[in-house]
């Protein structure tokens, strides 16, 4: 059976979405001329500031381009659905945001993204634009903790990009921006659960099969298989399983502060997210941890996949300051 979607054609879906986003947010965003998949913040880039370029495949909205704006990312390079952008739009983004203080690339750790962003960085080096890269690796479920740098980047991107963008906006040096970005990534943990699949606009067919009474713990945001296929359980039981894994790794002390994100993978409604948030709060209370800030909603989606992820960022004074720093993006403001 084909999945029903409100699209005109699968092949045009990404570009037509971008046209709609520019129509909705002209005050925040514009596209580089003749490069419609290089989306730039109107008020972000400026001389002397490290430029922050994020990017990745489409289908995760509001990730990535919803977080482009003053105080957060300066640009996003947009790929096909679930596919890294090629080097050209990445290069266009870097050139548009280069303020002479260096350009930082940040994106989730996926082989395709790494190859395309690295090719872009090699070509930018020829134009004497200095590029550094910080990969996000917050997905606890993807690889054991002793190989943290092989993990995927998922919804924790929101907090990690937020911290790095604030560091750029506060005119940190290139070295300090990079350090803060790595620090933010190292203290961010995400784990998700998928209940039903999504369909790519070009195929209109579910990208994985799952039984009606099953869930997949740790599934990736592109439908990559996770840690285990299990019988569906209650919101509290699932939340406990996710929180247990993350708290075990986080090693926080009572009194420590955290930022929390309960994120929908696409079609799971706010009702269910808030039911999970209720349990997250009680688990954090039990551990003596203080929620400094929380986000609940669609922040890093996987088209219409059903399921949710929980992200916990273990704050310290610096990260708290960076998370609290104001930002004004098309789909996110503080």
């Amino acid at each position, binding site marked *: 059976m084909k999945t029903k979607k409100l699209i005109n054609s699968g092949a045009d879906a990404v570009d037509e979405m971008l046209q709609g986003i520019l129509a909705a947010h002209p005050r925040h965003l514009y596209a580089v001329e003749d490069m419609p998949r290089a989306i730039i913040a109107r008020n972000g880039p400026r001389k002397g500031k490290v430029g922050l370029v994020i990017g990745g495949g489409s289908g995760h909205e509001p990730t990535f381009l919803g977080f482009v704006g003053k105080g957060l990312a300066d640009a996003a390079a947009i790929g096909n*659905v679930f596919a890294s952008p090629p080097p050209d739009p990445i290069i266009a983004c870097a050139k548009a945001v280069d303020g002479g203080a260096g350009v930082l690339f940040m994106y989730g750790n996926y082989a*395709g993204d790494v190859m*395309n962003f690295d090719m872009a960085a090699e070509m930018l080096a020829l134009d004497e634009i200095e590029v550094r890269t910080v990969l996000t690796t917050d997905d606890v479920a993807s690889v054991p903790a002793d190989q943290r740098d092989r993990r995927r980047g998922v919804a924790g991107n929101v907090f990690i990009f937020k911290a790095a963008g604030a560091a750029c906006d506060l005119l940190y040096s290139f070295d300090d921006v990079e350090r803060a970005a790595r620090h933010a990534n190292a203290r961010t943990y995400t784990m998700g659960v998928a209940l039903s699949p999504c369909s790519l606009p*070009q195929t209109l067919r579910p990208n994985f099969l799952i039984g009606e009474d099953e869930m997949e713990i740790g599934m990736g945001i592109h*439908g990559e298989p996770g840690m285990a296929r299990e019988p569906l359980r209650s919101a509290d039981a699932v939340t406990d399983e996710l929180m247990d894994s993350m708290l075990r790794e986080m090693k926080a002390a009572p009194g420590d502060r955290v930022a929390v994100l309960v994120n929908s993978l696409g079609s799971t409604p706010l009702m269910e997210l808030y039911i999970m948030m209720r349990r997250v709060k009680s688990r954090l209370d039990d551990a003596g941890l203080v929620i400094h800030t929380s986000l609940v909603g669609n922040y890093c989606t996987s088209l219409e996949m059903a399921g949710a992820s929980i992200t916990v960022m273990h704050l310290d004074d610096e990260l708290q300051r960076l998370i609290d720093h104001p930002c004004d993006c098309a789909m996110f403001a503080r």
Partner: protein
Amino acid sequence: MTITTKDLQQLFAGIAEDIAAERDHLCELDGAIGDGDHGLAMDGGCQAAAKAVGELDMETPPTLLFNVAAKAFLNAVGASSGPLYATAFMRAAAAAKDRQTLTDDDFVRVFAAMATGIQERGKAEAGEKTMVDAWKPAADAALDAWGTGKPLPECLDMAVHAARVGCDATKDMTAAKGRASRLGDRAIGHIDPGAASAVIIIAAMAKFARRHDG
């Protein structure tokens, strides 16, 4: 035999046609261990390369043609197949440098250069459950056969055979690269979609060599 720019345009058209026919099957293979879009990426890339190459005039030297294919494939796709095949075509371009047409010997070297490019860009070795498991044995088989004096179509037939064996072997491997690398033993039992699409491309190149020779 002499391989002209027009012949190479037909080669790219043939590759695009054969990949398009297997698009959904490649997506299904990818759905089992990855994100289910490999067929779309390969189809988009091969169509874009065939179209860009098809628009070149007949005087275009092969080296430029391969570079045009590389750029078109890369910019249509991104993903991981984009850089991998773009690098393959750029290496093909380097192997065809300063030629107006290609000899059989040139074509074997172009073929081997594609495999080397993919391996270097992906930093993968054979046995890691990637397209290298098809490309590397295929290039080795073609070079071996060519070295012992076999005609080009036979060399590429042996490459196809080696690629198929290599692709089938990915079924029993765990993955060391790409999205499937986080699956551990759960990747066992599934063919690598990148190796499967490599077999289709290598087979299309062999078909081209046979048809061209006959």
